[in-house]
């Protein structure tokens, strides 16, 4: 409904004008790869946060990473240690991580041992000591590790109400002194409900270790974060020499650019196949090539990428069952040069066989490679290999994560070709045992068929979400030029899809024998 000019004059101020008076909450980098995406941009400045979890989850390491990423000599960090882990012990272990910068100690990062005050005095004395140090140093960051120890000791002689008062006072003081605070503590999930600390906190980062079969998966959850939109759910965390690394459930793809409005048709590098696809694959589609071993799935994937490279579209090939060198050499056998574009930074062949990585970590590798080369085409060869490369505990998440990744990448205009191996049966033509066709726009099925005493290959476009496509079942061969679709539709055979077709027509002469060039 159109609005009148008068109505337009009296309309409330624009959103921009209304928002102009809002407080701007600056966000600090966490220093943890992947965590800022999960947090919704970073750690809100001057917030009062809790890092909680069971022992061994990486709470102290996370606190250290945040501190090392942000503390400067001008705006230092105060790290209060209590009984759990004295600073000396922390330094012994934390210096093993690459984020540890020895130069920052003493000037940018100052450790203060609170153990004596906590053990010998009351909560008021603890507050006074923290306040004294904060007033002296003027820190940008304050960490109390472990705050749980402070609380546990105090609760032997203090009421819960007094404890709440102490936490409230501490939060107010530290925020007033423009410090971003982290209270580190060992808590069990059931404590969240009743503990006043969690009520007062602006942010609550929960770390956990989840056993899955023989693997243990580290998880991170932002249970609470005032003032900004964090990514909900459990995110995988890995602790390596670099410290913590977090893998967002959304893989940081939420903010990716939108696909082009008019989608081009992309050539597969095989003119006959392009024709079967109605002119080519639609840009931003996800295509599944399903077929048994030896039907040329990898050859098709290679041609798809090579054709993109020929047209100036960088690409990524993720391989799981074959090493990149072998893949490159086999492509050379088809006359496709994958070496030069790799040297030029137009192509990366990723060999992903980590075996103990989570699906999110593996996908993160893929996404980073896509960003590095500015890929427009991605070939995943194969989904079976992809799943097998994951530790058993992570396989349950495979389809869900794959769904998210494919959805997000195709949404950003990247065209994906995935291969999947299916076993040929001679009673039906399954597309995939994966039931993943829901995440593909297009499906091409390859299979063997017994014709005239030969095991030949047939190809059919089963599904194309973006438009009409050929319904023909075509025979093809793999030559030294890769996959080549040959011959017209076979009308003199029925039940080709079973693999055991029935010859219907009269053959006046034998058809030319389709076989690969020697």
């Amino acid at each position: 409904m159109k609005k009148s000019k008068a109505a337009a004059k009296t309309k409330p101020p624009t959103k921009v004008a209304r928002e102009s008076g809002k407080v701007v909450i600056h966000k600090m980098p966490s220093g943890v790869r992947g965590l800022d995406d999960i947090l919704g941009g970073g750690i809100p400045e001057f917030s009062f946060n809790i890092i909680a979890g069971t022992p061994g989850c990486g709470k102290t390491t996370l606190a250290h990473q945040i501190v090392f990423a942000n503390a400067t000599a001008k705006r230092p960090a105060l790290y209060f240690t209590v009984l759990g882990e004295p600073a000396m012990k922390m330094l012994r272990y934390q210096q093993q991580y690459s984020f540890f910068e020895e130069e920052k100690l003493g000037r940018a990062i100052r450790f203060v041992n609170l153990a004596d005050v906590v053990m010998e005095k009351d909560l008021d004395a603890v507050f006074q000591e923290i306040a004294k140090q904060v007033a002296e140093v003027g820190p940008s960051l304050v960490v109390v590790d472990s705050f749980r120890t402070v609380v546990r000791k105090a609760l032997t002689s203090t009421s819960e109400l007094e404890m709440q008062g102490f936490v409230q006072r501490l939060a107010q003081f530290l925020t007033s002194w423009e410090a971003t605070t982290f209270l580190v503590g060992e808590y069990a999930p059931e404590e969240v409900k009743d503990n006043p600390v969690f009520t007062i906190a602006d942010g609550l980062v929960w770390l956990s270790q989840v056993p899955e079969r023989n693997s243990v998966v580290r998880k991170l959850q932002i249970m609470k974060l005032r003032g900004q939109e964090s990514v909900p759910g459990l995110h995988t965390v890995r602790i390596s020499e670099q410290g913590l690394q977090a893998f967002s459930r959304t893989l940081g793809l939420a903010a990716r650019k939108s696909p082009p409005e008019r989608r081009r048709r992309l050539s597969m590098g095989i003119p006959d196949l392009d024709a079967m696809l109605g002119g080519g694959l639609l840009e931003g589609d996800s295509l599944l090539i399903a077929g048994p071993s030896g039907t040329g799935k990898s050859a098709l994937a290679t041609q798809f990428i090579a054709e993109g490279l020929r047209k100036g579209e960088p690409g990524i090939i993720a391989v799981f069952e074959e090493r990149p060198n072998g893949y490159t050499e086999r492509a050379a056998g088809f006359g496709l040069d994958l070496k030069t574009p790799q040297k030029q930074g137009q192509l990366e062949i990723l060999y992903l066989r980590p075996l103990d990585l989570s699906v999110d970590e593996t996908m993160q590798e893929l996404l980073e490679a896509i960003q590095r080369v500015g890929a427009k085409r991605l070939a995943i060869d194969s989904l079976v290999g992809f799943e097998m490369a994951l530790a058993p505990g992570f396989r349950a998440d495979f389809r869900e994560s794959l769904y998210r990744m494919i959805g997000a990448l195709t949404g950003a205009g990247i065209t994906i070709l995935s291969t999947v191996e299916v076993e040929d049966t001679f009673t039906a033509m399954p597309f995939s045992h994966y039931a993943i066709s829901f995440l593909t726009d297009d499906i091409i099925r390859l299979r063997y068929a017994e014709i005239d005493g030969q095991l030949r290959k047939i190809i059919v476009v089963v599904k194309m979400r973006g438009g009409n496509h050929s319904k023909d079942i075509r025979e093809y061969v793999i030559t030294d030029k890769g996959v080549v679709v040959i011959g017209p539709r076979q009308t003199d055979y029925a039940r080709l899809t079973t693999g055991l077709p029935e010859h219907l027509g009269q053959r006046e002469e034998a058809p030319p024998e389709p076989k690969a060039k020697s």
Partner: protein
Amino acid sequence: MIRATPQMRDLASRLVTAETGKPKASDPEYPAAFNVCEKLRPHLATLMGNEGFRAVLSRALTVTSAEVKWLAEVQVNVGGAWGGWDKPEAQVAPKELRESGVLLVAQLLGLLVVFIGEKLTLHLVRDVYPEISFEDLNHT
């Protein structure tokens, strides 16, 4: 067994030299090495607590006193202060006093190196003794 490296011995020697000639007013014969440890104490106690510092210093003293007899009379009291020090029963020559003091400080530094590494140990000592040069420490 004294575990300090030549580098730590050299550093210990420099620290003891820095404290030589600055005796406690109440006791002109107070070993310079004790002064070094006391000067390091507040800084290290911040990192490990008073009890932590006392434990490390006690260990250094015990190991060193196996080689230096007069140190057997000495104890580390609560809070890390020296005790049992009045004057050694047998007169200790100033040279021996200095050398054994260097051993004690070197042992303390050696323990710190074991716990937190050489780089951090030097960093911590540098904060307490900014006037001392660390550039040409003996590595051999």
